[in-house]
């Protein structure tokens, strides 16, 4: 389908009193739409005011030291889904996903699961053998430009990656295998750069 002229998003059914539902709707629906709008443009910043709401989006500039995955997404465009689909080869990327729970003989060792449908990027500072604690962030899944944390479900040591950087992943998919840690207290993950 060809691109059509961009229209202003419809006003959310909210009042300025700021009740939780309105905030939720803003975060879940309006923000992703605005992010898409920003990406489709050459603008660096986008601002919208309505009913007392005031939202400003600024394009992130890529800097040295950011995870490699961010750089792969094309110069000056933080995240353009269609480009990435082509770049990652969507069918191949999802071929291993398929419906159905892991088989009965599946690995019982814990794994960090995908919190959402999107594109996976592991934390750059993380390598196999790094000791992690339950709740540590191991990477992100990019959902329409919004990053959601991939979290360690238990203490342990980072084992095998079950998804590649930039791979399309589904909700609940195993992303990072954790091995039993000898002493999880000795090492922690350095904070992500950028």
């Amino acid at each position, binding site marked *: *389908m060809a*691109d*059509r002229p*961009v*229209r202003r*998003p*419809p006003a*959310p*059914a909210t009042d300025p009193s700021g009740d939780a*539902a309105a905030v939720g*709707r803003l975060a*879940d*629906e*309006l923000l*992703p*739409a605005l992010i*898409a*709008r920003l990406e*489709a443009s050459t603008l660096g910043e986008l601002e919208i005011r309505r009913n007392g709401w005031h939202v400003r989006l600024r394009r992130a500039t890529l800097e040295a030291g950011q995870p490699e995955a961010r750089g792969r997404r094309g110069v000056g465009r933080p995240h353009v*889904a*269609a480009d990435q*689909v082509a770049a990652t080869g*969507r*069918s191949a*990327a*999802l071929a291993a*996903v*398929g*419906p*159905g*729970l892991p088989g009965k003989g599946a690995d019982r060792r814990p794994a960090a699961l995908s919190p*959402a*449908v*999107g*594109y996976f990027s592991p934390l750059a500072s993380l390598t196999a053998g790094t000791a992690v604690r339950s709740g540590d962030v191991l990477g992100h899944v990019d*959902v*329409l430009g*919004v990053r959601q944390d991939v979290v360690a479900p238990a203490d342990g040591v980072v084992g095998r990656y079950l998804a590649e950087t930039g791979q*399309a*992943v*589904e*909700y*609940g*998919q195993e992303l990072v295998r954790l091995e039993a840690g000898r002493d999880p207290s000795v090492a922690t993950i350095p904070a992500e750069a950028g």
Partner: protein
Amino acid sequence: MFERILIANRGEIALRILRTCRRMGIGAVVAYSEADRDTRAVQLADEAICVGPAEAKRSYLSAPAILSAAIVTGCDAIHPGYGFLSEDDTFAEMVRAHSLTFIGPSAEVLERFASKAGTRHLLASHGLPTVPGSAEMLRDDADALAEAERIGYPVLIKPSAGGGGRGMRMVRSPRELEQALTVCRSEARAAFGDDSLYLEKWLEETRHVEVQVIVDRYGHGVHVGERDCSVQRRHQKLVEESPSPALSPEANAELCRAAVDAVVAAGYENVGTLEFLVDQAGKAYFIEINCRIQVEHPVTEMRSGLDFVAEQIRIAAGEPLGYSQADVVLRGHAVEFRINAEDVAHDFRPQAGEVQRYLAPGGPGVRMDSHLYPAYEVPPFYDSLLGKLVVWGPDRPSALARARGVLDEVVLEGLITNLDFHRALLRNETFIEGAFTTNLLDRIGSAAFVSSAPRPQAVG
């Protein structure tokens, strides 16, 4: 035309959409929640993608999850089915902002018809009669009492958003009205995130008649006849049929013509349904429009030979309608029975659990749209629809005779269903005469209704 469609729904309608994608040579990706891994559409899809947990709010109702699933699987369009995101104009706008196509009316059209009160005004201005009611949304309780006094009791309290009977109450006095307003507001807020209410005059002994329309983007529209959905329990449809036995063929045709003329003039597009209440004098009042495929669309498919999912896809892809009203030929009589996992004897309590045995009926003029199979586990998180049995006959008596036969043919074990209710209905004189009204079942009591029916014979 689209290459790959994301089906953002579940159950029988996901399977229904998938079947049309297959026929049209379009790839089908099914988005499913963790509770629906084993559903039939997931098994049959070209690809399936888990979008979230069982909770609908985080899966089927999550616009970012659905849209992200469409993008990562390389789809160029999203079919929302019914319910969930199917009439959400913000979602439709998000889909378009990502250069994908929402299969349904455009965001502008959904927005125009989003408010029931606004739609009544709009279509009244294009010649459709409406039920007397409050001119605006109710400001507060005092406003509600004043409006109810003006309209005259009994009145029906209705939420501006949503459907399916939630947030609706009929009240006969100011005292009842005051009590019900609080309940309706909280129900509407919980179900639709919007607690605005309005009032309508309650019409006693009405029929529910709806008109199916198809309108392309270029202002060409046809109606595909009407459906009578008067067999309801607390505003939930149980049986639908076409043509409506409530009106004469001439009156039905006139209603359908008025409906399609009004929505075309009002700028509607894609497949839609206009709902009317018909009073005992045969006067029809427009009540609301459904901007999506309806559960009961197969009734009209059986009479017209059209595929409404295919029509939705074609129109969303920008194709012209390609035929005119004279080309739409409606034959015979069709009836749909909604088979639900619910216990009629215990206030229609929803049931969940494993389907132990399942055998669908068959034969000429019989269609069973169902996602069931033996050993399928019906999850407790969603609606209780198990399938839709649709029968066709050259006329109403032959359709009902066929229905009696095939209902006794259905084998569905492991869950309590409402099959006995349908068997009872087919032996009920009011229904056989075609004189069922929307509140009849609630007046008699469904349990009493079923217990009066002869037991079906055991089927091997």
